[in-house]
């Protein structure tokens, strides 16, 4: 069976398009950060696009939910949030999804079932487990995707949540976006194991290792565990290996890794890998790819222009959105 068998061309092009938009958006965000239009922490997603795009493509966001950590711009785009609103939030503007109160780490869209964007390592894991609790409680048939980094898996929050999800049959899928570094610390320096799939055993759930540089492989892996979670309410853990091209945040020059390692991963770039698969299957031409990329660049540029032109939030609004 061919790798792309069973996939429709539109579906594959949509994944390619989403990855391109995320890549070009992040490049634009980095530029704007350099111009001091964006401040504070800003964690870019370049290189990891295959993980969230492959995962969200396997979901039904009408009834499913997604929660993630602070490297969340890509997740916001993948769940269908408007890049303009995301960039406006980065610029701290009133038109931002959180009215300029959240910033880079706190992208939310309740209608699109994107529940953040959390700035505390592992903080979203119990919360996502609780969203899955609601899905069990109300028998919605939905699942919840809970993304976190390789640094977060050592938090008690993960271990307590995984146990709860297993004993209560909660349809939550724990996704380690394993980019090999918790900030500047290599996984192997701080973890008793390098492959996290084994941790699933302790909580009586399935654990799978996935190549996150390959969006199709991610899509297939998520589809499989999401189907099980929907049917049996069983949680799952996926260790999705990926790589971030940029530093941990904008202030990190990433001196803890070699250029050779970075280059090695760039050779398996998720966008280029899907492009190659599509070219091999004659589902795309170079010209079409260029068109999609041009479109992605235009979307990123429009987002930046929108954010730039948006008004500052009124100072009085600082007293709003605290109590319901």
């Amino acid at each position, binding site marked *: 069976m061919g790798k792309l068998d069973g996939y429709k061309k539109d579906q594959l092009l949509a994944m390619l398009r989403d990855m391109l938009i995320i890549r070009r958006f992040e490049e634009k965000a980095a530029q704007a950060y350099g111009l001091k239009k964006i401040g504070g922490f800003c964690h870019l997603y370049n290189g990891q696009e295959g993980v969230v795009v492959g995962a969200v493509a396997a979901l039904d966001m009408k009834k499913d939910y997604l929660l993630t950590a602070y490297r969340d711009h890509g997740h916001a785009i993948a769940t269908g949030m408007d890049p303009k609103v995301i960039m406006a939030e980065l610029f701290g503007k009133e038109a931002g*999804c959180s009215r*300029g109160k959240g910033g880079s780490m706190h992208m939310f869209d309740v209608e699109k079932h994107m529940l953040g964007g959390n700035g505390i390592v592992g*903080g979203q894991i119990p919360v996502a487990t609780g969203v899955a609790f609601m899905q069990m409680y109300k028998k919605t048939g939905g699942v919840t995707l809970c993304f976190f980094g390789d640094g977060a898996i050592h938090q008690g929050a993960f271990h*307590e949540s995984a146990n709860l999800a297993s004993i209560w049959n909660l349809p939550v899928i724990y996704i380690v976006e394993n980019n090999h570094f918790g900030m500047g610390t290599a996984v192997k320096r701080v973890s008793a194991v390098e492959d996290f799939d084994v941790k699933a055993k302790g909580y009586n759930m399935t654990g799978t290792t996935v190549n996150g540089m390959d969006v199709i492989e991610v899509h297939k892996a998520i589809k499989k565990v999401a189907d099980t979670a929907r049917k049996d309410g069983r949680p799952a853990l996926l260790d999705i290996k990926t790589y971030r091209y940029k530093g941990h945040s904008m202030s990190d020059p990433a001196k803890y890794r070699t250029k050779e390692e970075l280059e090695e991963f760039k050779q398996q770039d998720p966008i280029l890998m899907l492009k190659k698969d599509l070219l091999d299957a004659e589902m795309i031409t170079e010209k079409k790819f260029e068109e999609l990329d041009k479109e992605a660049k235009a979307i990123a540029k429009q987002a930046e222009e929108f954010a730039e032109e948006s008004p500052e939030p009124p100072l009085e609004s600082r007293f*709003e959105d605290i109590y319901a």
Partner: protein
Amino acid sequence: MPELAMRDALRQAMDEEMSRDDSVFVLGEEVGEYNGAYKVTRGLLDKYGQPRVMDTPIAELGFTGLAVGAALVGLRPVVEWMTYNFSLLALDQVVNNAAKMRHMSGGQLKCPIVFRGPNGPAEFLSSQHSQALQSLYAHIPGLKVVAPSNPYDAKGLLKSSIRDDNPVMFLESEMTYGLTGEVPDEEYLVPIGEASVVRKGSDVTLISYSKPMLMLNKAAEELAEQGIEAEVIDLRTIRPLDEATIYESVKKTNRAVVVDESWPFASVGSHVCWLISRNCFDYLDAPVEYVCCEDVPMPYNHNMELAVQPSVEKIVQAAKGVSYAD
């Protein structure tokens, strides 16, 4: 009116709200089969079953955060912490998620959740199990903090807390679970954010909440015997604070004693003292006095632990002090 113990009034509140609204559920350690470490949730599992009543593993951070997540998507969790001392294990989920989700989402989310359990000094428990943590939670914008002192208020306030769309820290007291008081058969609510003047007086205002209210009432009786008429205020809610009721009384009596089981530094009581000093300055005939726990961890030895805490004697002394009646 029937007399009910505090624990039964609290259970009635949960029972009524659970039967009124399917989205209300209770979770915590020993809340189900064991019927609650202090028997506050007695019978709820039998009546409602799972998933309305969930026994959790001993994992405060995990189940607290789980409840926060459930609240964000439409359920109304009532989290029982076996004691507020254990809430410290869940602090990140309360402070960084429950209190801030609405803010960080620009008002898109709401977090209707109640965190309840015993808080404050008990007896013979030493320093990890006998401490008052309200000041820590009252510090956080985004949280409401409620601390009733009697069964009537406890039931009415817990019902209001469960119906509230915000995170509510609901502080009970181990020493008063058996305290009885009148609770009507018919349904009622006590609104969050309203203090109650429980005794009228003209000479000095005594202000507190939760368990020390028992001491305030006794102190007021002793003071009356000595010719000092104390007005007694039960704050009932710490955040949002009913400042108007406090100021109205102090402007009348011109003297105030604040009583709190907190430690003195940066506490609920010290904040109330500052508010009165600032907003009633022209009316005060004496500096505001503060009776609180001494600035030490709670000792196990009974004589020492009693010496650490507010007492009727300390309150009477403070009231006489601000009245220059010594």
